[in-house]
């Protein structure tokens, strides 16, 4: 059996995830061995960053990749979680770990509040509104809303998480904590994808009208997915606050949202393995090429364009999902017009009738 076939068969199987996480669990030990042999970049810090981004991107994947909602404001919920942890910890003295559910809950509530009015908007309007929400949250945090967020300087001095008397104070212990959460996220979202609810989301992404026709409560499913994704983003925020220990509004800007968006799309929308790979590539490479600050972003921008042209389905495309034949395309390409008899030409009426440029 060729490697290609082997990969196609197993790239989304649970076994691969188990192998991956076993490897990740052994990695610090391997790195220690490597260090003894002489090496010494702050690999663990980088891996911690990747782990948090992976958890965050997995939660965005539920909304963007599996449900197909164009959501580009995920850092807003991440920020809610991180600030909830920071405020409860520094002002009220809660142990960091106890703030985890609260952060998740608050982010979920924020997600619900945001999603309720806008969930019905057409794709790219949803996108622009969520961009607006990231900006509103950042401005609110910078302006020291409720006198709790510490303004532009943010909050510092967040304590280390303690579980059963064990203090997670070294990068290595942090690493285990973060990657345990990421592993849990993978497990959760994998099971979710294969549940009744996950299949409903899949259907909605493929064809909303048909899904509604089959008795799926489309609005409710979308809302649930959005809220659940926001909840996980909030919990990732707790981990971030506990890892970095100083948070400031500028870490939650639009740009970070774009990176997350790109992780999901470039990795493969709806594909958990793809999202993991995307986090490694985008966050890891960014960290490694830190010295080439803007040249690296130049490359990143061109890579996004090139990927969309040459491999729009992402690095590890989702498998078993529906073929997305029903999304409204941009203008049909000329060659598509020629086989109009097949009926795959975009139908102007589908998106509500257009009467642009009226006299």
């Amino acid at each position: 059996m060729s490697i290609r076939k082997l990969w196609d068969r197993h790239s989304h199987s649970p076994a691969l995830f188990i192998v991956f996480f076993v490897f990740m669990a052994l990695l610090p030990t391997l790195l220690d061995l490597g260090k003894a042999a002489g090496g010494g970049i702050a690999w663990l810090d980088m891996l911690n960053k990747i782990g948090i981004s992976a958890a965050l991107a997995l939660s965005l994947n539920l909304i963007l990749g599996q449900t197909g909602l164009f959501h580009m404001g995920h850092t807003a919920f991440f920020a809610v979680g991180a600030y909830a942890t920071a405020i409860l910890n520094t002002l009220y003295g809660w142990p960091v770990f106890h703030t985890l559910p609260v952060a998740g809950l608050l982010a979920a509530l924020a997600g619900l509040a945001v999603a309720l009015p806008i969930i019905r908007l057409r794709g790219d309007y949803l996108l622009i509104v969520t961009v607006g929400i990231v900006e509103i949250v950042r401005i609110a945090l910078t302006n020291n809303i409720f006198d709790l967020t510490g303004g532009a300087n943010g909050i510092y001095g967040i304590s280390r998480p303690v579980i059963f008397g064990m203090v997670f104070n070294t990068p290595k212990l942090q690493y285990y904590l973060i990657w345990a959460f990421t592993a849990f996220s993978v497990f959760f979202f994998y099971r979710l994808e294969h549940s009744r609810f996950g299949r409903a989301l899949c259907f909605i992404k493929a064809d909303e009208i048909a899904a509604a026709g089959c008795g799926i409560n489309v609005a409710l499913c979308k809302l649930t997915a959005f809220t659940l994704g926001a909840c996980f983003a909030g919990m990732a925020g707790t981990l971030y606050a506990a890892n970095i220990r100083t948070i400031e509004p500028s870490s939650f800007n639009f740009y970070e949202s774009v990176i997350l968006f790109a992780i999901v799309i470039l990795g493969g929308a709806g594909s958990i393995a793809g999202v993991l790979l995307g986090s490694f590539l985008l966050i890891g490479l960014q960290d490694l090429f830190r010295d080439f600050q803007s040249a690296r972003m130049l490359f990143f921008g061109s890579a996004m364009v090139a990927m969309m042209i040459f491999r729009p389905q992402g690095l590890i495309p989702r498998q078993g999902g529906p073929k997305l034949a029903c999304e409204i395309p941009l203008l049909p390409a000329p060659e598509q017009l020629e086989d109009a008899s097949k009926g795959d030409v975009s139908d102007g009426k589908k998106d509500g009738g257009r009467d642009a440029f009226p006299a």
Partner: protein
Amino acid sequence: MEELLHQLSNGLALGGIYALIALGYTMVYGILRLINFAHGDLFTLGAYLGLTLLTSFGLAGHIQAGFATALVLIFSMGLVALVGLALERVAYRPLRGSDRLCAVVSALGASIFFQNAMMLFYGARSLVYPPGILPDASIHIFGAELPLARFLMFAFSVLLMCLLYWFIHKTRLGAAIRAVAIDPNTARLMGINVDSVISLIFFIGPALGGAAGVMVGLYYGQITYDMGFGFGLKAFTAAILGGIGNIPGAMLGGILLGLIETISSAYLSIAWKDAVAFAVLILILVFRPTGLLGERVADKI
């Protein structure tokens, strides 16, 4: 009263700029249904090109300031328009007919590319336009002394908008653009070259955006490589406010948003001025998704 007049005139000047940028968004969206995220960066590019032309040739020293400014405006508009054409060819045309999300991501990538290219080329610090190009005079209205420059800005953007309106509604090419916006497939059957109409759109839109960039440089004096994001997002808000895909709507929306922003920053809180624009965006999408003059954007579920 005087304060109010100041804010109103300021809002008109700013609103004219928003409207010019919004036209680029709305025309592209009207035809391709694509949010051209890179448009804000083309606007910034216009500001930088204008500055380069203005300073590197020492134009302002040799010939009359007004004439020099006009030259700089025309050249920056032309150059930005060419970049816009190239952008469409490279980043958007190969994606026709594919998933809309792909086009959005491609637009984001192009935006990141332009932003960082400008940062590499011009540096990360803000640059300053040479002062004294716009006339220093003021005019008196109802006892308030208002800078003439604001009215010049507004008048110039209105002039450009009138030109565009005339072009879209009174010329054959304009008719072709309208036809493609209504139904590209039928337009193609009627013998309209849809590709060249789209190219035309990506010529006119960035030209207007480039003009807005030079105007921002002249009026506010300071430009930064990342200002396109804020201006672009607000201009897009303006386009939605007026009704996306609708050209008079973009003009109206831009001017309204400029007024809302200056007045709210004067009477509410300056720190929240950007948030107000986005709050307007969300409110308009929730309560009147068609915009003031436009089409439906929310699908019923």
